[in-house]
């Protein structure tokens, strides 16, 4: 058997490239990718990208052949999220390019550095409705950080250099290079070798804004730090932790900020927002100064914006200046390098620990921590059925160093609530786009960037079937990704909203005709297990983690299980609901749509 990460026939090169082949645009591009430091690309060949695939043949690049272009975009996305390097994906023109779109959008909304290479029909055919001609340059314009249409081989050095520089500079994002076929085959002997472009320096935070921030923070009696995904993007995790430790500030995190402060840290109140913890949301609603670090007041985090943190003056630090004041006015906005910002503020802010508001801050901190303790999640669910949060908590303890790639839905929120993250790069989740089908290919990308890493994909029965074909990729490269498939035989999050906010009119959420997932995995040559009783969970998890290669654990869970707590849409984060509160909602329940009662293991948080 081939080692992990290599296809069965890797190294058996029956058509070794000839050194005599003249360098054309495609070969120049492959050489440039190597010079850029790219080691892996994810893709799928087709007509208009064939010269590139010809140039790839025998090149010192690892190409991962996925089974659908969306899988390529998500895999490159997972590779980039886990490694911090630029992910690269490739597809042909037309449907190949359009199949990449969701993955490109996800990278844009979650600020993931990608370079996307699409084949295009020859320039002479562009605009003639040629076979597989699609204006991917125009189609992706709203969802890329930038895009290039290379109309001449002579433009390739500038375009490729800029594409990688733009993708990783400042707030990262996807850059598309649309590459017509005639440009790929055009002579390129005369082009200079690719030189990697340096990343632009992030501006220093202005002294005046640092002074404003310090003045506000020093006046705080009830401060809260609100950390987001920008912390890891700015490589400022250590600086953020130092700031929190030095200032002893109660801290809440966004979905993408999870891990910026370890879950077990005594000042970590958990995730804020729609499915955030009661301790986190209450602290934000009651604080008098909110120190926002690399976060953007996303609606899932703030709830009803007009009622978010109503008593707080806001200090907003971000390296993307356009985020400051976008949704919530900043009383002090600090634009620029987050590391320098945090480093500059840490000692002066810490000096106020024992100043005139020292006693008030100690009292506030104790109240926040007491609330976190009082509302901590419980894992003592009664009953025989599997309680998904308990399973995830257990798996988190068994695999504390794992990279976790999630899909989207209830299981995604349970992971956010119950997994103990200590590094944001170990939590791969489609945050802003919320793209079902993300998890499995993202896990493949994460495994490819580090073959020694323990990678776990947590998925749901709805999400899993959206990119189930990538099980073939998992098998082909023998990647030891472990999949936990939480199967509630429903589109659970939609079902939950229909139960709570649409008077229990259950519309098109029933997946009780799901296929046999264990049989599917085995058909792909992947070891598979099934568990449906709480008493068997520990044994099943042990067996899953002990599997040598890829493996899937199919977990049957209660269809009626909900994610708690929950802030109803367009409500203040102060209005959190628990399972016990549902009875008070004005729900009409048509007899024809009577759901099964939620089992007693659905614990309020």
């Amino acid at each position, binding site marked *: 058997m081939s080692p992990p990460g290599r296809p069965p026939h890797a190294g058996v090169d029956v058509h070794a490239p000839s050194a005599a082949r003249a360098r054309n645009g495609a070969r120049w591009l492959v050489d440039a990718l190597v010079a850029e430091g790219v080691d892996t690309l994810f893709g799928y060949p087709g007509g208009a990208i064939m010269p590139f695939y010809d140039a790839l043949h025998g090149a010192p690049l690892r190409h991962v052949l996925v089974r659908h272009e969306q899988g390529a975009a998500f895999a490159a996305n997972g590779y980039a999220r886990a490694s911090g390097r630029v992910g690269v994906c490739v597809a042909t023109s037309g449907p190949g390019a359009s199949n990449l779109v969701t993955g490109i959008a996800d990278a844009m909304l979650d600020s993931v550095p990608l370079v996307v290479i699409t084949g295009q029909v020859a320039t002479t055919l562009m605009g003639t409705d040629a076979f597989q001609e699609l204006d991917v*340059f*125009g189609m992706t*314009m*709203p969802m890329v*950080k*930038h*895009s290039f*249409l290379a*109309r001449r081989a002579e433009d390739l050095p500038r375009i490729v250099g*800029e594409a990688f520089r*733009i993708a990783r500079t400042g707030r990262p994002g996807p850059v598309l290079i649309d590459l017509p076929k005639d440009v790929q085959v055009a002579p390129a002997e005369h082009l200079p070798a690719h030189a990697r472009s340096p990343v632009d320096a992030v501006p220093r935070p202005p002294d005046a804004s640092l002074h404003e921030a310090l003045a506000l923070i020093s006046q705080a009696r009830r401060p809260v730090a609100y950390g987001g995904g920008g912390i890891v993007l700015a490589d400022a995790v250590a600086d953020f932790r130092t700031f929190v430790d030095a200032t002893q500030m109660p801290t809440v995190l966004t979905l993408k900020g999870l891990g910026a402060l370890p879950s077990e840290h005594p000042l970590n109140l958990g995730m804020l927002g729609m499915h955030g913890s009661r301790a986190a949301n209450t602290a934000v609603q009651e604080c008098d100064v909110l120190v926002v670090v690399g976060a953007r007041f996303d609606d899932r985090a703030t709830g009803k914006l007009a009622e978010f943190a109503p008593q707080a003056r806001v200090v907003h630090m971000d390296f*993307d*200046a*356009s985020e400051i*004041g*976008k949704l919530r006015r900043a009383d002090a906005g600090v634009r620029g390098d987050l590391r320098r910002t945090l480093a500059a503020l840490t000692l002066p802010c810490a000096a106020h620990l024992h100043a005139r508001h020292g006693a008030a801050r100690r009292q506030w901190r104790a109240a926040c921590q007491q609330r976190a303790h009082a509302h901590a999640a419980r894992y003592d669910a009664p009953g025989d059925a599997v309680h998904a949060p308990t399973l995830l908590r257990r798996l988190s303890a068994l695999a504390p160093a794992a990279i976790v790639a999630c899909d989207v839905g209830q299981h995604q929120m349970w992971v956010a609530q119950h997994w103990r993250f200590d590094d944001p790069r170990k939590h791969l989740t489609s945050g802003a786009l919320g793209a079902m089908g993300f998890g499995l290919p993202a896990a493949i990308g994460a495994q490819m960037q580090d073959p020694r890493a323990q990678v776990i994909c947590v998925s749901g029965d709805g999400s899993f079937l959206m990119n189930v074909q990538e099980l073939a990729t998992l098998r082909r490269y023998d990647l030891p990704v472990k999949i936990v498939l939480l199967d509630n035989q429903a589109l659970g999050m939609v079902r939950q909203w229909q139960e709570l906010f649409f008077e229990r009119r259950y519309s098109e959420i029933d997946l009780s005709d799901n296929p046999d997932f264990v049989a599917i995995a085995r058909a792909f040559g992947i070891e598979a297990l099934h568990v449906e009783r709480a008493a068997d969970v520990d044994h099943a998890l042990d067996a899953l983690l002990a599997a040598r290669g890829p493996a899937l654990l199919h977990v049957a869970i209660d269809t009626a299980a909900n994610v708690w707590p929950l802030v109803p849409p367009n409500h203040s984060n102060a209005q959190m609901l628990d399972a016990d509160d549902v009875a008070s909602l004005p729900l009409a329940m048509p007899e024809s749509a009577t759901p099964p009662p939620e089992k007693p293991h659905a614990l309020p948080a």
Partner: protein
Amino acid sequence: MRYQLDLTLRHAEGALARVLGATERRGFRPLSVDGEAQPDGDRWHLRITVEGERGEQVLEGQLAKLYDCLAVQVSPC
């Protein structure tokens, strides 16, 4: 509120579409567009009048992030 946008853009494929698209997506309706390429052909100067209810700083910040946008100034008119 009405605003005038004064922009300097790279004369690059897609630059005009990016600016107009971003302006509309961020909640501003174009009322007039006027512009020309500079004689040397590597810059566009563009003046756009828009109306919208959101703050002009948000629009200016988003347009400034576009790679092809070399300078932007948004002012009430």
